[in-house]
Structure formats: structure tokens, C-alpha cells
């Protein structure tokens, strides 16, 4: 059984077990009180009766304490002992990694760490027990002295343990259930981190699966590999359900099911090389001679979702390399253009135009085989399907509408806030000419405080990639744009801190209310799909959105001659942040391609 399976099994079992224990505890406490039912229910009030009742509440306190110890705390202790299963499995997996042998066994320090972590976990259960014990004691005393009925008292206690709410709005069973879950995950996380750091591993992959309640934040990072420094920077941001603490321990927040697994960037490189060394023949299916080599250059020589989908469409009929790039569907003609300045840029155009080709070709297949609807347009309204259908991206036009609403809502206010904030900072900043060093330091300090979806290093890389200045001041300005989710430009104009593909992606979604690339005129020379309020969404909008998505998702960052950086990852985050609906819809396309 893998460590992940053990984690899944233990979190589920422990939560169930702790809830059952609390039901037993509740029954025993009520039974203790019931022994004194007659006296507790006696009225009217007299000094002698008060003395007797007080004596009983003191006796009950001792009884309750024993019950808590014998049930809840005894069970917690048993459950914590089961954490050893996790240690065992992790050590098995750790032993298979390419690390020196001396780190593959448990040392005395490891055993001390495990023991300390277990003690710390048990103390967490003790704290919860003490909190609820105090509340129950207080409640019983107040009820006895106040002369409330036995039934009322039982209802109050029952509410505290399994039914009612605590100060945070939860009964103890819910509180303890979450504690049982988080304790296992955090024990595992702390041990894994300690062991990995001792072996000198400084990079980690955020691992786990995605379910309906998975936080957007976790969703964005699943499968990604980061350095410890990057993790601390990314995790300093805020998101719904975040809990405070070390990112390696708290991960996505309360009840998070994800884990950090140690990796060494060298292993990843080796894996990547291994895959590349074994090219698979005909991964693109039947292709024309003109496109054969270009497809390999653009999309690689190993099987991936895009090679799979290309293998399902016919070979390209016509190919050109002159002027500006375009795809003409009526002739199945792809012109990758002639950009004499940079071969890589030319390949990017090829990927963009090939995105159009895939979109149109699948659209043509759909017109003959409606079963494709299940894959690419599960929830698409019939009215949309029936209006000028030409491509599969058409089926996701609602995502563009939803993103446009988000991006244009209060846009002026957000832009004003950006300008105001930027202006204020410029006025406070040390002089650009005479105090250059102090100015850089000033912006560096601001950057330490301002947290966005990208780390400062990622922003620096991205600005370099876009051939822009990448000092602390420019990084800060970029962060402010992300903070207010804007571009620093009028609609239709480029914001040069972003790539032209990203400008165009957002431009295509909002018909250039934000972003730039094709112009409103181009979009309006195209069949309408739907009208939403005053906005008309056209066929070319979804087509360009998909082509830009394809271009950025399969960006050639690893072969850029200027520099070698992971722009693909950065733009993935930007796409998901600025246009989560459209991006998720297209991510689902990629998942469907991968099933082919």
C-alpha cells in the first residue's frame, strides 16, 4: 500500500473512530448524571439541597474527567500509535530515491523527531478535551444551581459533544474529526520535511488528487515542483480556507489532503531526457511531409495530449511560409508566416495556427459525429450549439462570457485603484537619479509585503522573457497589476510587461475591452454566437482564445535561444488567474485529448 493510500485510509478511519468515541463518551456522561437524576430534579430550593447538589457537581467533575481520559484520550493515543504505518511506508519510498544510503534508514534523531511529533499531536487532543470538559463542567454546575430540568441538562451536554456548536460554530465531534484528519496529515508532513531536509533535498512536488471541494489554490499547484524558497513565497499569499503556519505543515489549509513529496531537479531532468531519448514513431498519425518536422519541433517527440489529438485529424492539405501567419479552413491551408527575426517566434506562430486547425478540424468532425458533444460541450446550451457552429471552442463561449463579466466588473474602479496606489508609491520612493540604491531597496521592501500568484523570481523571469526591465520597481508595478487584475493599457493596446500571446488571450475573451492582438474589427467580422446584455460574443473570439491557449500551453520555453526558463508554467498561472473559466474549459479539452 502506498503512503498516499495509507494517508487516505487513516484519515477516513480515524475521523470515523473519533466520532464514535464521542458518542460513547456522551452516553457515559449522561449515564453519570442520570444516577443523580432524582436529587438534581428536586425542588424547591433550600440551603441543604444546594450543599448536596454542589457536592454532586464536584463528584461529577471527577467522573467526567475519568470518562474523557478513558474514552476520548485513550482512543486518541491508540490512533496516534497507528502513525507508525506512515513512517514505515515513507521510509520504503524514500529508500528508493537516488540519495546516499546513509539517509535511507531511521536514525536516533528521526526516532526522537517521531516521538516529539506524536507527543505534540496528543497534546492537541488533550487541549480539545480540556476545552470541552471545562464547558461541560460549567454547564452542569450552572444548570444544577439554576434548577433546570434533567432533560434540559442532557440536551445541553449532548449538544456540546455531538450535536450543538462550540464557539467556532462546531460540536466537539466535528472539531475532533477535523483534528483527527489534520493531525495525521501534519504528522506526515512534518516528518517528510524533516527527513528530506536532512538528506539535502530542497525541492518538493505538491501531490494529491483533485475532488469537488479541492481549493482553487491547491488545484493550481497540484503536480508542480517548487524550491523551498518558492513555496514560502507562494504560500505567503491568501486564499479561502488557508490556515496559518508553515506551508510544509498546513499545506492548502484545514482538511487539506495534499502532500509535499521531495524531489531533486536533477531527477526530473534525467526523467525528461529518458523520455526524449525514446521517440515514438508516428505519434502524430498521418501527417503531410510539410508539417512532419515542424510538428516535432513544436510539440516534441513524445506522446502528449496534443500529439494524440493531431493523430486523429487528417494530414494537412496545404502549407505556406510567407508574410503573416494564418489558417484558412476552407482549403485546410496553414501559413506559418515568415518571421525572419526569430525562428522560435515563427514556431510559436505555427503552434498558434495549429491551434486553429485542431479547433476547426474537430468542429468539422463534430458536425458528422455528435457524440463529440459529450467530450467538448457537456453543458453547452442547445441555442449555442445551433448558432453558426464551426469549431469546438465555440461550445465553450459561456466561459468567455463569464470571464468577461469578472474582468470588466468595476474595471474603472480597479484601474483607478492601481493608478492611485502606484502614484502614492512613486511619490514616497527615493529619487531615481540621486538615490538609485535606496530606491531599489524601497521597492524591494514593498515587494516583500505584496504577495501575488507569482513569486518575485517568476515575475523577474517573465519580464526578462518579454525583454522588459526587471528591477524591483518593475516587479512591484507588475504585482500591482495582478493585485487589481488589470492591464496597464487602454482596451486594444498592448501591455508590454505581458507576452503578446497573453495580451491576445485576454483580448479575445473580452473583445479587447482588456488586452490586444486582433482588434475589435476582426472579431466583429465573424458570425455571432450569442448576445449577453450589450456585448456580442463572436466565433472568432473563442477561436483566438483557444489558439492562444494552445500557444501558451505548449510554449517552446525549453528551447528558447535567448534564455531557458519555464514561461509555460508562469503563463499557466496567469491564464488561470485572469480567465479561470475559459482556461478551465480548455484544460478540460486537453484532458479529453489525453484520453484519445
Amino acid at each position, binding site marked *: 500500500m502506498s503512503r498516499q493510500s495509507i494517508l487516505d485510509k487513516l484519515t477516513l478511519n480515524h475521523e470515523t473512530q473519533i466520532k464514535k468515541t464521542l458518542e460513547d463518551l456522551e452516553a457515559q456522561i449522561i449515564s453519570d448524571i442520570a444516577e443523580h437524576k432524582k436529587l438534581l430534579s428536586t425542588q424547591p430550593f433550600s440551603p441543604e439541597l444546594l450543599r448536596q447538589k454542589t457536592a454532586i457537581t464536584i463528584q461529577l467533575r471527577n467522573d467526567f474527567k475519568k470518562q474523557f481520559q478513558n474514552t476520548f484520550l485513550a482512543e486518541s493515543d491508540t490512533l496516534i500509535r497507528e502513525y507508525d504505518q506512515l513512517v514505515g511506508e515513507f521510509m520504503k519510498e524514500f529508500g528508493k530515491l537516488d540519495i546516499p544510503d546513509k539517509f535511507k534508514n531511521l536514525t536516533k534523531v528521526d526516532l526522537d523527531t517521531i516521538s516529539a511529533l506524536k507527543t505534540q499531536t496528543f497534546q492537541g487532543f488533550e487541549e480539545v478535551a480540556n476545552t470541552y470538559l471545562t464547558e461541560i463542567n460549567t454547564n452542569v454546575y450552572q444548570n444544577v444551581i439554576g434548577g433546570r430540568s434533567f432533560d434540559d441538562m442532557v440536551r445541553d451536554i449532548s449538544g456540546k459533544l455531538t450535536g450543538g456548536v462550540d464557539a467556532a460554530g462546531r460540536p466537539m465531534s466535528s472539531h475532533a474529526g477535523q483534528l483527527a484528519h489534520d493531525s495525521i496529515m501534519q504528522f506526515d508532513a512534518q516528518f517528510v520535511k524533516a527527513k528530506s531536509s536532512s538528506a539535502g533535498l530542497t525541492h518538493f512536488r505538491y501531490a494529491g488528487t483533485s475532488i469537488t471541494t479541492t481549493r482553487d489554490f491547491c488545484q493550481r499547484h497540484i503536480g508542480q515542483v517548487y524550491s523551498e524558497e518558492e513555496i514560502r513565497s507562494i504560500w505567503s499569499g491568501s486564499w479561502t480556507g488557508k490556515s496559518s503556519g508553515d506551508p510544509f505543515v498546513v499545506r492548502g489549509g484545514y482538511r487539506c489532503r495534499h502532500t509535499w513529496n521531495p524531489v531533486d531537479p536533477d531527477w526530473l531532468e534525467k526523467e525528461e531526457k529518458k523520455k526524449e531519448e525514446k521517440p515514438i514513431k508516428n505519434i502524430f498519425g498521418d501527417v503531410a511531409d510539410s508539417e512532419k518536422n515542424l510538428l516535432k519541433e513544436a510539440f516534441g517527440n513524445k506522446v502528449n495530449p496534443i500529439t494524440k489529438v493531431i493523430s486523429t485529424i487528417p494530414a494537412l492539405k496545404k502549407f505556406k511560409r510567407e508574410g503573416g501567419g*494564418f489558417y484558412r479552413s476552407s482549403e485546410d491551408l496553414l501559413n506559418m508566416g515568415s518571421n525572419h527575426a526569430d525562428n522560435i517566434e515563427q514556431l510559436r506562430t505555427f503552434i498558434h495556427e495549429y491551434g486553429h486547425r485542431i479547433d476547426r478540424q474537430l468542429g468539422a468532425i463534430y458536425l458528422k459525429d455528435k457524440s463529440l458533444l459529450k467530450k467538448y460541450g457537456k453543458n453547452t446550451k442547445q441555442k449555442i450549439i445551433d448558432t453558426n457552429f464551426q469549431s469546438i471552442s465555440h461550445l465553450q463561449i459561456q466561459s468567455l462570457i463569464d470571464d468577461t463579466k469578472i474582468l470588466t466588473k468595476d474595471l474603472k474602479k480597479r484601474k483607478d485603484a492601481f493608478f492611485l496606489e502606484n502614484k502614492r508609491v512613486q511619490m514616497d520612493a527615493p529619487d531615481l537619479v540621486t538615490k538609485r540604491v535606496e530606491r531599489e531597496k524601497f521597492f524591494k521592501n514593498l515587494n516583500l509585503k505584496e504577495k501575488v500568484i507569482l513569486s518575485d523570481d517568476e515575475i523577474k523571469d517573465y519580464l526578462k522573457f518579454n525583454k522588459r526591465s526587471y528591477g524591483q520597481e518593475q516587479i512591484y508595478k507588475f504585482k500591482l497589476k495582478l493585485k487589481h487584475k488589470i492591464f496597464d493599457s487602454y482596451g486594444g493596446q*498592448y501591455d508590454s510587461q505581458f507576452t503578446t500571446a497573453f495580451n491576445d488571450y485576454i483580448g479575445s475573451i473580452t473583445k479587447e475591452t482588456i488586452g490586444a*492582438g486582433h*482588434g475589435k474589427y476582426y472579431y466583429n467580422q465573424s458570425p455571432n454566437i450569442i448576445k449577453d446584455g450589450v456585448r456580442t460574443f463572436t466565433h472568432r473570439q473563442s477561436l483566438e482564445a483557444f*489558439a492562444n491557449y494552445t500557444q501558451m500551453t505548449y510554449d517552446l520555453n525549453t528551447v528558447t535561444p535567448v534564455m531557458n526558463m519555464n514561461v509555460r508554467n508562469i503563463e499557466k498561472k496567469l491564464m488561470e488567474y485572469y480567465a479561470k473559466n475559459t482556461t478551465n474549459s480548455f484544460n478540460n479539452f486537453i484532458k479529453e485529448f489525453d484520453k484519445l
Partner: protein
Amino acid sequence: MIDRLIALSGEYIKKYNDFPIATRNLSIEEQESLADFLEIVLQDNRQITEKEIKQYQDISKDIDI
């Protein structure tokens, strides 16, 4: 994309709220030629005509740029 075209098309958009020629995926020669043309249009203080748009790009409905 060349900075001169970004700047000039930006200026045009500020005046007329749209730039009716797609600037994505143009060759360098086309970008430079378009920038030269835009300078003239902006100096003339006028909008680009439909005929001129067609000289710079094919806007047939089956074309995706």
C-alpha cells in the same frame, strides 16, 4: 512585436477606440510597413479605410489569424 508598432497602434486606439488590423503573427517586414503606414494615417488625423484594411489583411470569414 516591434515597439514602434505597439506605440503607434496604441496611439490610434486612444483616438479611435480600436485598431482594425490584427497585429498578431505578422512578419517583421509587415510590422514595419504597417508602422510606416500608421504614422501617415495619424499625421493625416484620419481613420483607416475598409480598402486599406483589406490591403493589410485578408478578412475572409474562413481565415483565422
